[in-house]
């Protein structure tokens, strides 16, 4: 399999793939091989019984309450909000509630972070569990106090007889004398987002909330800002080695030869090769970095590269055959209306590949030994990370158990590179027989992380002789929203899995707008095209904050504006006349009122004394039970092509608002990240690979680009309970900016990002 010739290590790739065995090349140790050929999924971990109350909640002897949460918080304060819900139901102070999350050995699988659903879905489960826990505690108290439960009241974790408040017992005393939470709770038998709980106890109505609805400070922030919190990056294990990866010279290139002598002068450096998976480890981090830079690998580029580049990408998309398609909505006869229309309107909108580009590229620690793997990860879905690790290592002869422990890392906005980094650490650790910490370098983060998909949208409208819009057709064609599933529980969904020979298992879907517009004829349809490379592609797509939300609604909400102006109608009035859902109308009116919206049926092209144009634009969309409208005011400098989004007004309906302060900050983050994607972000690539490899070649929003003011007004709808919040404001931002630029200049921008060069060119 491997032979040494002239100081170089040579091996035949075919042979390697057949056995799928890894080679450990060490200068001081003999060759070690382990088998990684297995593809079977390890059984998911089901150690914690969701049908038991104490899986979810514990009460300590000191009266503190612990919630074991199966989702994740990455700085949006969702764990704080869960604590608020628990505090209300249990009648305890919120500061005695601790939320443990992200450890697969301690928390049942509620799906990890996904779709801004943390509160909407798991919040209700915790509400049910906490209500049932309170009842169980009351029943034990009733027995101890000799009083029926309905004659008891609770405040601050102390149960009292309502008529004789001096007769009391605390939760802490109750758990010292019994096991009230070792009781069943009704579970629907599902894991992940679909997991629900219900008990005999009825949760309190939201209107009786004391803590929910108030701005409890985020629990994590003080320690993090004082550098006292332990991030993933601060964690280390005895004997831990540092790992760095080497990536194929071009997409699809395969390893031909590794020069083992190229790193021989680096202390303790060892080389790991498995298929096209190439990494180095060393006891000291700087040595691992130097080894990765010095390791000479000869790549076979005979079947490598892309068939197009970022300049020709959208033509490629137009010409590509569809691998999957769907019609998501269809009423009336769009084609007949267009054929018989007095006027038709057609427009195309283009969106590029975008990078997750986290603040730091992937990092993870793995410790593989004795048939067990432990992974410390910042992945949003540690339960899937654990399953993926077990599946990657296991085969017919040997199965692995796995535990994943989430620790804070750089922000994550979907299926980022986190899970890929975890698997790199797993393979390295399994091979070298020691705990390994992997840290990707910046160019890997930008170059090899999963991407948001590129697309082309075609919109068509039919207008009759009296100026009524009769038909609207929205059609999006693009790469799948996930060439790779947002989960990472199968080797075929992971970069390391691809590099050692596991086949990708793509799912091909796109998306369509979420709105309530009514037209006599309306059709929403999509087509997915195949990825540019199927295996180990630097352009593999996966969920990136509000998957396909900004892409679809940039086009749909721009085109709604185009239809409004084409029929000489104010863009706000046009929308209000056509939305069927009262919640949609309410947020549109709220945002408009907050902004002091001035009706206009044509672009105003207001020019300031400094030569810059100023305009406002509106856009709205639904998502995950939430609905948001945004008005943006932009200042456009024709001399430089710079667009500055100066002010933003938001009308927001997220159902029940649990924590107004942190929700507003979450919304701001989404608005500004969407601004960044709209104005600056595009993954540049050639046929030889991704060329946006750092913050110079992939610029994002900076402080100078931030608006002067963001105002958010909530339409609080407590009767709906908490809805998905945060992400839903991402999708409204791109069109709000484009529509504002149109009002300012009369020029319609239909290709994201709105770079200075493009804006200058468009303004002529």
């Amino acid at each position, binding site marked *: 399999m491997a032979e040494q010739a002239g100081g170089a290590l040579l091996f035949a790739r075919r042979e390697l793939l057949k056995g799928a065995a890894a080679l450990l090349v060490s200068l001081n140790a003999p060759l070690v091989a382990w088998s990684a050929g297995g593809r079977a999924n390890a059984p998911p971990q089901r150690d914690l019984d969701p049908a038991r109350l104490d899986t979810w909640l514990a009460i300590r002897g000191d009266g503190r309450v612990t919630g074991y949460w199966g989702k994740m918080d*990455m*700085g*949006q*304060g969702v764990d704080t909000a869960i604590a608020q819900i628990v505090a209300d139901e249990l009648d305890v102070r919120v500061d005695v509630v601790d939320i443990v999350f992200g450890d697969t050995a301690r928390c049942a699988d509620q799906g990890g972070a996904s779709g801004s659903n943390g509160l909407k879905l798991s919040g209700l489960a915790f509400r049910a569990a906490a209500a049932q826990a309170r009842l169980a505690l009351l029943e034990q108290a009733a027995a101890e106090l000799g009083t029926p439960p309905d004659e008891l009241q609770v405040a601050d974790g102390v149960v009292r007889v309502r008529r004789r408040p001096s007769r009391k017992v605390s939760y802490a005393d109750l758990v010292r004398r019994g096991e009230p939470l070792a009781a069943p709770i009704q579970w629907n038998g599902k894991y992940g987002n679909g997991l629900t709980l219900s008990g005999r106890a009825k949760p309190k109505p939201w209107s009786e909330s004391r803590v929910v609805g108030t701005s409890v*400070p*985020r629990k*994590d*922030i*003080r320690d*993090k*800002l*004082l*550098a*006292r*919190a*332990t*991030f993933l*990056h*601060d964690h280390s294990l005895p004997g831990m080695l540092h790992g760095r990866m080497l990536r194929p010279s071009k997409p699809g290139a395969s390893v031909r030869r590794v020069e083992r002598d190229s790193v021989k*002068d680096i202390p303790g450096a060892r080389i790991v090769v498995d298929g096209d998976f190439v990494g180095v480890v060393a006891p*000291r*981090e*700087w040595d691992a970095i*130097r080894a990765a*830079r010095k390791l000479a690998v000869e790549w076979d580029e005979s079947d490598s590269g892309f068939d197009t580049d970022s300049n020709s990408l959208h033509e490629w998309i137009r010409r590509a055959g569809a691998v999957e398609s769907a019609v998501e909505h269809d009423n009336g006869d769009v084609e007949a209306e267009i054929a018989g229309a007095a006027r038709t309107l057609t427009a195309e909108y283009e969106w590029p590949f975008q990078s997750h*580009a*986290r*603040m*730091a590229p992937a990092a993870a620690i793995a410790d593989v030994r004795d048939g067990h793997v432990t992974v410390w990860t910042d992945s949003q879905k540690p339960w899937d990370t654990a399953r993926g690790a077990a599946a990657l290592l296991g085969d017919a002869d040997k199965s692995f158990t796995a535990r994943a422990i989430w620790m*804070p*890392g*750089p*922000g*994550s906005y979907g299926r980022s590179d986190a899970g890929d980094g975890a698997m790199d650490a797993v393979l390295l650790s399994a091979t070298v027989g020691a705990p390994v910490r992997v*840290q990707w*370098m*910046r160019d890997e983060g930008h170059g090899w992380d999963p991407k948001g998909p590129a697309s082309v949208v075609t919109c068509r409208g039919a207008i009759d002789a009296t100026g009524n819009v009769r038909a609207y057709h929205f059609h999006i064609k693009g790469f799948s929203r996930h060439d790779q599933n947002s989960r990472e529980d199968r080797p075929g969904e992971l970069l390391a899995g691809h590099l050692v020979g596991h086949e990708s298992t793509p799912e091909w879907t796109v998306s369509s707008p979420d709105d309530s517009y009514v037209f006599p004829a309306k059709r929403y349809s999509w087509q997915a095209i195949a990825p540019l490379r199927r295996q180990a592609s630097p352009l593999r797509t996966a969920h990136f904050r509000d998957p396909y939300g900004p892409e679809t609604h940039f086009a749909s909400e721009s085109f709604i504006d185009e239809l409004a102006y084409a029929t000489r109608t104010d863009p706000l009035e046009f929308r209000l006349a056509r939305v069927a859902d009262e919640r949609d109308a309410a947020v549109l009116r709220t945002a408009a009122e907050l902004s002091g919206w001035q009706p206009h049926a044509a672009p105003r092209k207001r020019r300031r004394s400094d030569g810059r144009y100023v305009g406002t634009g509106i856009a709205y969309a639904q998502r995950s039970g939430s609905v948001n409208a945004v008005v943006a005011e932009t200042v456009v400098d024709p001399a430089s092509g710079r667009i500055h989004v100066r002010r933003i007004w938001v009308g927001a309906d997220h159902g029940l608002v649990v924590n107004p*302060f*942190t929700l507003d*900050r*979450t919304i*701001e*983050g*989404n*608005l*500004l*990240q969407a*601004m*960044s994607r709209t104005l600056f972000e595009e993954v540049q690539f050639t046929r030889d690979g991704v060329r946006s490899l*750092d*913050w*110079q070649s992939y610029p*994002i*929003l*900076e*402080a*100078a680009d*931030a*608006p002067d003011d*963001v105002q958010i007004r909530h339409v609080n709808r407590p009767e709906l309970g908490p809805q998905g919040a945060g992400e839903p404001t991402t999708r409204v931002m791109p069109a709000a900016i484009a529509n504002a630029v149109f009002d300012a200049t009369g020029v319609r921008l239909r290709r994201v990002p709105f770079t200075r060069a493009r804006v200058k060119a468009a303004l002529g």
Partner: protein
Amino acid sequence: MGAAEGLRLPKNGAVHLFGTDCMDKSFTLDVDGRQHTVRADPAMPLLYALRNDIGKRGPRFGCGLAQCGACTVLVDGEPVRSCVVPVSAIRGAVRTLDGLASGDTPHPVQAAFIAEEAGQCEYCMSGWIMTTVALLEENPHRSDEDIRGALAGLKCRCATHMAILRAVRRAADEMAKAERGDG
């Protein structure tokens, strides 16, 4: 100020310091008021000494290219990107996010960031907080323009710039008040 020649890095310049294979040498570093001796390759960036040898948590690896600021420390009061500055080039006193608070009392800039809940994941915060400390300790009387200018080149991928700018404004106002003695 007192920082060594060669520490003035272009704000967005990618500086590569690889290539020479030197023997390890000993370096004595003054970090957050304590002396530490580190044995390392002279070309190794300061960041790795701070994190792996001295045990600091605040400065973090973001890019290794001086493009994001997550690794920012102060050297004699000046913000420096520790991910590119070789450990052998450090002459002055190094101050990190870890050393800002006095016991349990946060630095006024930290207090302002906590009050505004600036940041989301908080991974990048050494960049924003240390740069703000350098700006406001030199002179807390700063316009919004000054602030945005001083923060150029820093990245926050969670895009919490609104909260960050409010926090810096709050810190500037608090520190100016304290300077006047009416705080």
